[in-house]
């Protein structure tokens, strides 16, 4: 564990080495996120109420999305790069070290822009989320569990590259899909789409269910959240480790 913590610390130091560029990217991302908040405010100003969701609820959902994305794409920036790293043979460095490879990979790169999400998310929740102690605790719980689901899903998508080859395209599509779906209230979707969001593209567990828990705490749903987080952690871990047997270290054979 200390090795992973030390790696993450080094990754942060590496990201902060060029301070101006780091803060420039962080502020760009924050400005980007604020545009979305403006969109939602304008949208609800016109629409009023959306199947029981008002601007307030959606902004809480959005603050959860920002924070989980900040953890998964900012602190563990490699979670969405596993496919590309495998194709480039860039797992070599990790595999020569006496460390658990997935934990090491996830802690070796910090992305400046997405760190902006991580900084803004809790601020948005504190300002607009009526943060009572219980709600804040649920926010924290939801964000931690949601990040595990998101990272597990992204790692599993990326690890598919180890089995089927390519340059991580399927991971890009999975990445776009889960983040788009996670940006909108769960109750918008019905039927097959909703099924999908609770299973193959688990966007519901990245933002929807955590947001519901912040609104009304429900023990069975919280337990389900823990179980799903554990399941996706296992799926990500398993796909990656099974995939390592097929890792070809970037050996390209065009003959």
């Amino acid at each position, binding site marked *: 564990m200390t090795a992973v913590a030390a790696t993450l610390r080094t990754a942060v130091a590496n990201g902060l080495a060029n301070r101006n560029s780091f803060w420039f*990217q962080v502020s*760009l991302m924050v400005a980007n996120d604020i*545009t979305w908040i403006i969109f939602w405010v*304008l949208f609800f100003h016109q629409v*009023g*109420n959306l*199947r029981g969701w008002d601007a307030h609820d959606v902004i809480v959902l959005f603050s959860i999305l920002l924070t989980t994305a900040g953890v998964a794409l900012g602190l563990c920036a490699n979670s969405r790069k596993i496919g590309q790293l495998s194709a480039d043979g860039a797992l070599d460095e990790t595999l020569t070290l006496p460390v658990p490879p997935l934990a090491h990979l996830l802690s070796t790169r910090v992305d400046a822009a997405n760190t902006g999400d991580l900084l803004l998310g809790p601020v948005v929740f504190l300002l607009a989320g009526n943060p009572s102690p219980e709600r804040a605790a649920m926010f924290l719980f939801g964000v931690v569990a949601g990040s595990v689901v998101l990272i597990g899903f992204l790692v599993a998508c990326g690890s598919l590259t180890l089995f089927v080859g390519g340059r991580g395209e399927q991971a890009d*599509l999975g990445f776009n*899909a889960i983040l788009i779906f996670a940006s909108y209230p769960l109750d918008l979707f019905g039927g097959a789409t909703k099924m999908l969001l609770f299973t193959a593209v688990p966007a519901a567990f990245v933002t929807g269910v955590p947001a519901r828990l912040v609104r009304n705490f429900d023990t069975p749903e919280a337990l389900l959240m823990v179980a799903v987080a554990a399941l996706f952690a296992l799926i990500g871990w398993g796909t990656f480790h099974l995939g390592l047997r097929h890792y070809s270290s970037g050996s390209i054979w065009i003959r």
Partner: protein
Amino acid sequence: MNPYLAGWRLGFLRTIRSPGDMSVRIGFFAIILVVMTALWTAAVDANGGSLHGYTRTSLLWYVFAAQTAVLGVRPRSVEEIGDEIGSGTVAVQMLRPVSVVGLRMSIDMGEACARLIASFTVGALITWLFVGAPPSLAALGLAAPAVVLGCAANIASCHAFGGIAFWLLDAKASWFFFQKLVFLPGGMLIPLELLPRPLELISFALPFATMAYVPGRIASGHPDPLLLLWQLGWLAVLLGMAGAVFAAGERRLQVMGG
């Protein structure tokens, strides 16, 4: 062959020859349509079946055309233009006896046309499947040139914004602000009629509305040729601006050195 036509052809062929990249984009587009359908269906239902004159059907045909037009352009176009300027690639291109910005825009337009053919067809099919026939076939027909013109205005604008890199050596920030301008005042995320009245009027007057709102508005059942004229007018201005920015930038490169 005319060099700009050759550039267009190169961009077009290059795009249709990478089907992997193309199918990922189409998949992405399909997901957006699914989400938007869900969002606007709920919004229209909550308001008694109509929002500022948009029904569910017309609103989703709006979304289809607005998204098609914006997604035709490579997402990081402005940033890439900035990188080419910052890295000195443009300085090398200036040695050729053709306009740098003209050739670049032709190639981008070729790529956009290839993508538009695919995404317009697939998107129209999906939308038809989800919400039924478009408000009028004439509207859908007129939306096609509007989408192309919207893309062209977008590409010209990308070059005007990207050209800022001649002075700042980087266009990341300009890319970013440009993208946000297309999202909101451009009408990609939300039809301008749904904005507060003063914002709606300002947004309509700005060029960004020609890149998403106009194709959307036409496809939603308003085949008004005046809207195409509005696009053409802004396209001419934006092309002029892109040309002027590059001309000034290239002069600066020649004086200051690359």
